[in-house]
């Protein structure tokens, strides 16, 4: 843990602690960054990376501990204070104003009292294009895709001429080429003396780009050191706290590939939905896990929602979907659920669970919404029964099934969301990013559960942008790009490189 | 909502002018072939003229009675007639008035919601050559004519009666409840003030509640119910508008105090008011005959048209008569009921 630094750090955090309603998000974290340094911040979901950075950016205030900027103690009560001090954060969930244009968003917070619109658009276009971000400055942000929004955020940070820019997973939505431009940008910023905190899941990126890396685990700082001393294996060990041989993905490939006669359950043929899904075709078989990989915006989420009735495919020239050979077209998810097709959402906070309800109530609502579970009156007994059953089956860790769902950790919340769908006795299940924001232990449990579903003869579709997850789970891997399935691999032949290549070329 | 407003200081000059006007208007009739000539003058100055009526609202018995009488009178005289419904909204009324000026009728009959509204607009109308007659309510500006009641006088009469019934020597508690309409409406203010002056003359009279109902029968019901719980020995209840007072009267009936608590109110003598008297809900009902007021205002309009003076040059008035209606004489009272619209 040697830090080979000669000058005083530009910014330091001393014993930073943040308590959220009883739970500690970060505990006594010490952190520092110098001028022109690219500092990687890695750790698993929920390790406290975002919390630490939000505190630096003034979005939240630390419960205890100090932030020192040039050895001066600072109190950032609001993001405005941090901005004044030259700290800009590029948020993961993009923080843009949807009703304003790209150019407006870029200069927001640094605009003149009155702005001349034409000049603003031209200047914004120059800025964006000079970074090779191909975004129309006059477009309304609400019409942009995820990647373009991310670019606008990055452009905004650059425009603000910050001393310290915090990037929270900036590359998750970018294509390799856009990443290339982004890395080039980071190096140019570094050359100008801008300090950069780079949060990333992709360890390779962190190793390639950064000068130093800090690893957080469970809200505590477990390692800080120069990048050149690190390898991927060491990083993982720090992050997970276990030896690599015990980590999950190391040996996750299944030895046996099912080659028995397969029953085709779902067949999607030439489905078109607006701009997002263009001519998508694939089939799903009973007892098999089909993985769909692809970048955000490749149409993978949308096709799942179309099949499950949450979105409607084009009315004319929209293609066909067959369930057990019977053509289907659902207006609402209820109809799909009645036919045994469920979709487990990728964003559980936004549309996954009911926060005012308890675990058993959440699961029971799922049960009530099915034809067989329908009843006019509620049944306490039935509620307790399904609650207890699924808490056990999903290994949901709570004091009991009557705990409030908001009191659970991300992984347990996700299990409740899964349980809420599986209680509906589906024949086809779409899991959209089933382990996003879930702690490692829970990932394994959820994966085991998904496998057991397939073993029961249920057709399972797993959508994920995390390749190791897709590789370890799937019997068959489909790759989506620009609204269509461009490649299909069997589990045996798939590799990360092949999938990635198919996803972007 | 304000029904009627009155400026006492205007009474005398207006009454005098009215007399003069009537004389002037009958002058040409003294020629040889009196009948035919008069008819010709009448026809020439009345037929085809336009009457615009702007009440505070339509759909209430009082305004509907006026509207019916004015409309049928106008039709009978071959006059054009138009009516606007501002639905209790004084801003909408002002708007309708300005619209009426643009339409250039010959006479505008308006029910002015308060003394200051329409001050400028009435002047504008007169400058545009339109006669303006105010019905039941006045403004600070003198218009060409006024037809309506004298609220202070009516309240004085009512007050004296209440004092007689409940005051010293009556052997009753002297407790009086006033159900006010809307506190700020001028009519309400004039009546309440005059009443309080009368009550002040007798120390035995005690006003136990004086709450605003905003002309709402339900609210009158709730207030009366609550007050009667606290003061079961109330002697009299006064409400300045019959429709609203019926709510209070229902509460009296519900409390089983019918006959013991005297309910006072007033109105235009339409069916709804009489029914309440007949049902024993209202004991003393001061009837100022809305039907007749409709007639009066049409007579005044015709006179103004026949006289042909420049609008704004004269101010005339006609104060409506009023009389008590009780259970005893309610069957003799007119109790007008306009035909339902098909």
């Amino acid at each position, binding site marked *: 843990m040697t830090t080979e630094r000669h000058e005083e750090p530009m910014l330091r955090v001393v014993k930073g602690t943040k308590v959220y309603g009883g739970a500690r998000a970060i505990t006594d974290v010490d952190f520092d960054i110098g001028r022109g340094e690219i500092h990687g911040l890695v750790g698993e979901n929920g390790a406290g990376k975002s919390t630490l950075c939000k505190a630096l950016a003034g979005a939240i205030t630390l419960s205890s501990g100090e932030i020192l900027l040039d050895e001066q103690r600072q109190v950032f009560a609001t993001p405005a204070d941090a901005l004044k001090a030259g700290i800009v954060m590029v948020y993961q969930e993009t923080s843009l104003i949807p009703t304003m244009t790209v150019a407006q968003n870029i200069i927001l917070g640094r605009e003149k009292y009155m702005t001349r619109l034409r000049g603003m658009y031209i200047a914004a276009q120059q800025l964006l*294009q000079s970074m090779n971000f191909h975004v129309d400055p006059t477009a309304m942000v609400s019409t942009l895709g995820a990647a373009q929004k991310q670019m606008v955020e990055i452009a905004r940070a650059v425009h603000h001429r910050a001393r310290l820019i915090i990037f929270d997973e900036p590359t998750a939505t970018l294509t390799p080429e856009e990443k290339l431009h982004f890395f080039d940008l980071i190096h140019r910023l570094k050359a100008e003396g801008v300090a950069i905190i780079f949060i990333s899941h992709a360890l390779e990126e962190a190793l390639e780009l950064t000068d130093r890396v800090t690893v957080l685990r469970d809200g505590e700082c477990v390692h800080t050191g120069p990048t050149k001393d690190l390898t991927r294996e060491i990083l993982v060990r720090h992050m997970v706290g276990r030896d690599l041989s015990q980590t999950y993905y190391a040996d996750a490939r299944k030895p046996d590939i099912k080659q028995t006669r397969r029953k085709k359950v779902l067949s999607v043929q030439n489905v078109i939905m607006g701009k997002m899904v263009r001519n998508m075709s694939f089939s799903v078989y009973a007892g098999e896990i089909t993985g769909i990989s692809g970048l955000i915006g490749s149409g993978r989420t949308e096709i799942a929602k179309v099949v499950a009735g949450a979105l409607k495919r084009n009315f004319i020239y929209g293609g066909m979907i067959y369930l057990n050979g019977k053509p289907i077209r659902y207006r609402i998810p209820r109809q799909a659920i009645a036919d045994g097709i469920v979709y487990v959402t990728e964003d559980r906070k936004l549309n996954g669970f009911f926060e005012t309800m308890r675990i058993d109530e959440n699961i029971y609502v799922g049960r009530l919404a099915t034809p067989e579970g329908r009843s006019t009156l509620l049944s306490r007994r039935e509620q307790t029964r399904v609650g207890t059953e699924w808490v056990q089956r999903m290994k949901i860790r709570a004091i009991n099934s009557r705990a409030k769902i908001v009191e659970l950790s991300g992984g347990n919340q996700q299990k409740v969301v899964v349980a809420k769908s599986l209680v509906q006795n589906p024949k086809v299940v779409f899991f959209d990013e089933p382990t996003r924001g879930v702690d490692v232990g829970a990932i394994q449990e959820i994966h085991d559960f998904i496998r057991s579903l397939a073993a029961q003869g249920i057709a399972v579709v797993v959508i994920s942008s995390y390749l190791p997850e897709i590789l370890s789970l799937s019997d068959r891997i489909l790759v989506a790009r620009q609204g269509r399935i461009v490649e299909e691999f069997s589990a045996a032949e798939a590799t990360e490189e092949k999938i990635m290549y198919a996803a972007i070329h | 909502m304000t029904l009627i407003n009155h400026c006492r200081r205007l009474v005398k000059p207006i009454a005098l002018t009215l007399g003069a006007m009537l004389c002037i208007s009958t002058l040409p009739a003294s020629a040889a072939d009196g009948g035919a000539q008069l008819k010709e003058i009448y026809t020439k100055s009345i037929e085809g003229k336009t009457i615009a009526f702007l009440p505070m609202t339509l759909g209430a018995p009082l305004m509907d009675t006026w509207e019916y009488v004015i409309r049928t009178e106008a039709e009978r005289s071959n006059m054009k007639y138009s009516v606007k419904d501002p639905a209790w909204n004084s801003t909408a009324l002002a708007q309708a008035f300005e619209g009426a000026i643009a339409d250039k009728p010959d006479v505008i009959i308006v029910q002015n919601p308060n*003394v200051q509204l329409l001050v400028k607009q009435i002047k504008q109308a007169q400058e545009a050559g339109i006669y303006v007659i105010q019905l039941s309510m006045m403004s600070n500006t003198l218009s060409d004519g006024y037809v309506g009641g004298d609220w202070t006088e009516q309240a004085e009469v009512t007050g004296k009666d209440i004092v007689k019934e409940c005051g010293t020597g009556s052997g009753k508690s002297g407790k009086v409840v006033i159900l006010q309409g809307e506190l700020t409406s001028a009519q309400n203010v004039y009546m309440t003030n005059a009443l309080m002056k009368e009550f002040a003359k007798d120390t035995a009279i005690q006003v136990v509640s004086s709450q605003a109902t905003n002309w709402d029968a339900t609210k009158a019901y709730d207030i009366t119910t609550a007050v009667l719980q606290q003061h079961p020995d109330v002697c009299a209840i006064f409400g300045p508008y019959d429709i609203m007072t019926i709510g209070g009267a229902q509460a009296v009936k519900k409390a089983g105090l019918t006959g013991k608590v005297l309910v006072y109110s007033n109105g235009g003598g339409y069916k709804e008011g009489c029914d309440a008297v007949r049902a024993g809900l209202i004991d003393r009902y001061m009837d100022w005959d809305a039907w007749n007021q409709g007639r009066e205002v049409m007579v005044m309009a015709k006179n103004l048209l026949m006289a042909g003076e420049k609008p704004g040059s004269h101010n005339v008035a006609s104060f409506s008569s009023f009389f008590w209606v009780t259970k005893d004489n309610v069957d003799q009272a007119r109790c007008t009921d306009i035909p339902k619209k098909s």
Partner: protein
Amino acid sequence: MADTSFRETLIRLRYKWSFQQFVAELLQKRWMEPVVPFTAAVLVILAFAFLIPGYLSVGNIVSTARQFGEFGFVAIAIAVVIISGGIDLSVGSIFAMANFIALMMFNMYELSAPLSIAVTLGAGALMGAVNGMLIGYIGLGAFLTTLVTMLIFRAILNLLILRYSMEMAISTGDSRFWDWLGGGDLLGVPANILALALVAIVGHIFLSRGRPGWYIAAIGANRKAARHAGIPVERHLFLTYVISGVLTALGGVFYAARLNSPSSDTGVGMEVLALTAVVLGGVNLSGGKGSIGQSLIGTTIVLVLINGLVRFGLVGGATSAFLGFMMLLAVGVDVKWSRNRNKAIEKIYVVPSYFKLGARHDIAPDSGSAYALNNRLRDAEAIGLGKLDGPEDVIFDREGNLYCGTREGFIWRFSGKDLETQEIFARTGGRPLGMAFDRDDNLIICVAGMGVYGVRPDRSVYKLTDETTRTFGKVIDDSRLVLADDLDIAPDGKIYFSEATLRYTAQTWATDALEGRGNGRIIVFDPSTGKTRTLLRDQIFPNGVCVSHDGQSVLFALTWACRIERYWIAGPKAGKLETLIADLPGMPDNINRASDGSYWLALVGLRTPAYDLAMEDPGFRTRMIKRIPNDEWLYPNINNGCVVKFDESGKIIETLGDIGGKSHPSVTSMREERGYLYIGGLSNDRIGRVKLSGVDEQWNGPAAYWGERT
């Protein structure tokens, strides 16, 4: 094209001016958002004008306008609050209170008119501040808070009226200014309309271009994002309600001056009416979106509707019924409309038009035509293989160093005897396309997406121009340079450059081919004055630009039209445009001077019969665009090109090709340098070098054009 049939003329006319494109461009404009409410307003007015005699009389318009003035202030006030993501139900009460206070100050206390107004506005600000404190700083919900303050203000007002109504009934102030406010006009425009117009214009500028307006809209659209952007959310919410209070009070002042009546029912139900007006105008109840113009359109609808219905003489109920019906209808349509607006734009954005190309020349190797293909480019020597990503244009400086721009926005330089030293010379960003050296050896580059940039010999990058004059009467603002393509410099130093298309970008440019319409232009930049001017409009994808050897004219290539045009910039024909070569067998790209006084021309791809046919049938292309995903559309062939040489008269001298497309599938540029021809390609991974025979072995472009260095 003399034998153009009558039918063809008709078709040509039919597609010449595209209504669809006009609509698509209109829809893109932000001010087109309230198109539904605006249409509704016009229809309502027309309906009444038709039904009610004298409805459009001056008197009626003025009297309606007077009410419009007062109510307009309230509508703007509530619009500002809704844009901030809140709601203000207390406007009716504040309005009534302001009316009362103004009358009290002016009539009872006999203050001067300006002072009365000042006091009233102060009171309005104070009442707004109460709302603002509770909502902004304490953080209460806007709906409930203003609901409660509405009741409180109204109750206080009633108590005041009760206390002072008698005194106020008899007192009157006197001021000509006051009377003018209430009933006066300027050139026939009522005073309150003048004030409203002033407030609306200032307000609009502040809302759309000013900092407070942006902050308010940002908070309304996404409070968290606004906070992250460093916006003081609390303070601006507070400010919003103060603004609302002041504007409402201003409306109250005019109402007081006009009607002079402190009625207790003043402003009752006004919040509902104002809300209706604003929502009808298209201001989004969920915040962040809306303008003053929209709220005034909504106000017009509501007032005209009420005014018309009252004048119709319908009973009160009918007015309400119509109002309610209109509200539901207009908002229902608006909801559906705004949800599908972007979809609609997308659907109709690409507008194919009729375009007929002349007969194709035979290009078969054995055809004997001037265009007969050969394989002379196939064995071109590769330079920078694998390092370069899309060298669209290549150029040499006086010293014989080779430059090219790549897709990442880099300018590479190859130097040394055999161009073996390869380095990134500069970075412009964007997509560097056409290049030229000016007299002072600065490398001038067309950068797609950015404009025209220069790189000095010391590698510093500078901007020449990024904006041109806006075309008068064009719906969209075409002043930005979207896709500067190629340039050349006239002897007088003026830079002529092409902008290929205004409607597509460096990523989507190929779609422009499906339109077959003149979306591009030729622009000239004069470095001595720094002025940029559009020279020629409506060109069909103007691409390569080259000043002729004599410096008298500019040649430019129209890619989709397969034509070379000549525009005279000097001499007797100055200002004239003529076609030099028509009906090329392929799509022309860059044009460059050759050593022998002729010109090199790159054909980026060759025409195909299917595509030529498709261009004659816009209906076919429209259907194709609507029905199948865009990567299955029929695009022009830009995968196989060649280089041709033509002389000053347009005669083809020579053709160099690569039939299999092995090393140079599409050719976008070429330069002759000291006996070699260097080939660039938009999507290629190398620069090719071919030895030329029978040419001047010492010829160097800049030296030949600008003369020896001075």
